[in-house]
């Protein structure tokens, strides 16, 4: 994708986004609400056309025929399929639309790969949101999509479903496909993504592997402490009724008066800090 611009007047949503995706990687698209993530995903899926810029897929400019065979999409908060269909019927339906040969066998394989066999004959309306997501994944397997787009990948999923989705996406990428996902669950994104792209107000503010970004933005794990009284060490993040929320390095914890410490929390999400850091630098600290 090169120099993508998209606006919904009067708002400019994307302002010159250039990104390259590679085979076999899982890429997380991050950003605050309104950063342009969903618009970006829709552009890649061909559901929107850019005002400026170019999208190439498999070495050719994106066109409806390429999208039909090479891109699979699961959108935010929607089942994406008619819910009276069962997962098997869904796959057969889209398989027939695409004219896929040897369809019955391939549908069986896709259901197997997406771990959907036990739910294959039940209408989607009766299935959990996670299982509906898996139907999208099975469709991607069925059509041999090279690019899987997942908007708000882990939203509405329970712990087990998240773990299942994580391993399913990993298997999908290991087969040489590319996954691009958005999400606000930073733990999930960190666990699953090989690389992250951070959008801020329609521009790419960071792009790289987690450890690279951690170094680049001097991100590190830190401890957050609620402390009673004026602290001698650490950075005060906020203050409320005599309680101070502090950001500390691990070694600084021992310098505090243990009797005044009310709560200690290890901040683990590099991505969360990355988002905050970029937002802070851009003058919009959340």
């Amino acid at each position, binding site marked *: 994708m090169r120099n993508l611009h998209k606006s*919904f007047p009067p708002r400019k949503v994307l302002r010159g986004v250039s990104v390259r995706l590679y085979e076999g990687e899982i890429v997380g698209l991050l950003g605050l609400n309104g950063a342009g993530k969903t618009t970006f995903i*829709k552009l890649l*899926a*061909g*559901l*929107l*056309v850019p005002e400026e810029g170019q999208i190439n897929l498999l070495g050719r400019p994106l066109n*409806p*025929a390429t*999208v*039909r065979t090479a*891109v699979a*999409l699961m*959108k935010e908060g*929607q*089942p*994406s*399929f*008619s*819910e*009276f*269909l*069962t997962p098997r*019927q869904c796959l*057969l*339906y*889209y*398989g*027939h*639309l*695409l004219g896929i040969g040897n369809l019955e066998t391939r549908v069986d394989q896709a259901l197997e790969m997406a771990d959907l066999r036990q739910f294959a004959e039940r*209408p989607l309306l009766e299935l959990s949101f996670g299982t509906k997501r898996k139907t999208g994944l099975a469709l991607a397997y069925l059509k041999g999509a090279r690019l899987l787009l997942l908007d708000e990948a882990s939203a509405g999923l329970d712990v087990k479903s998240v773990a299942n989705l994580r391993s399913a996406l990993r298997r999908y990428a290991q087969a040489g496909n590319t996954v691009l996902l958005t999400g606000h669950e930073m733990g999930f994104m960190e666990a699953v993504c090989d690389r992250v792209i951070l959008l801020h107000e329609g521009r790419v503010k960071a792009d790289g592997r987690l450890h690279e970004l951690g170094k680049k933005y001097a991100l590190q794990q830190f401890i957050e402490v609620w402390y009673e009284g004026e602290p001698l060490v650490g950075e005060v993040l906020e203050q409320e009724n005599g309680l101070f929320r502090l950001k500390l390095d691990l070694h600084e914890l021992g310098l505090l008066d243990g009797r005044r410490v009310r709560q200690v929390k290890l901040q683990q999400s590099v991505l969360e800090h990355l988002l905050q850091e970029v937002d802070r630098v851009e003058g919009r600290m959340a």
Partner: protein
Amino acid sequence: MWRAEWLRFWAELRFYRQMWISQLVNQLLITAGLFWVISLLSQPTLSGLAALFFWQYVSIPLSKISTDIWEESTSGAFEQMYLHAAQPAWVLVVRLSNYLLQQTAVAVPLFLAMALLFGFSLTDLAAYNWGGMLLTLGITLAGFIGLGLAVGGVLLIYRNAIGYTNALEYLLLFSSGAVVPLNQLPAFIQPVAWWLPLSLGIETLRRLENGGPWGLTLMGLAVQSVCMLALGLILFNLCLRRALRRGFAMSR
């Protein structure tokens, strides 16, 4: 595409079987009620009864296409369909054809039963110009498919347009001669009423039964239907292109 839609049709029919039954009861009540009122006001005719069925039948493209687009846009299924079908308009037409087959299987026995119930004899039914009626029905349907695609297209970019679909159906019922003959409508409606998409079809039906000259009316209907079909296709594709620029209405 036919196989895909056939599969979808059966799945939908099985899943919503209770709803189909209630729709059938609705259809029966509306048609019987309206025809009873009409027969109180004037001499009941077979073409009058046929006109009510005709209205219900040709309105299907309008209601089916718009409901499908509305529901599928809400669930995201329309966008999936767009991503997997070379011609979304064609998919909608194929889906509609399956639905029309099902409605035919319901409407024909219902029409015959009601005709007998309202006192028409088997001789009346046998003497009816069924060939002319089917031809008129086919041509009117083509125009209404165009109208359905036009309204469906508008729904892709204006989500509130769904509210006007029903209004349009009833406007056609009461202003196209299905209930009240065109020459008995208020004077200010009459010039417009003649050009409504259903009027020429209903008028042809009446002339078929009365033995009046119907060739010219049918020709006018054919021209009107071809224009509506072409305009519907053009408008649908224009709206789809606009939706790709601005985003689909239900997912903005």
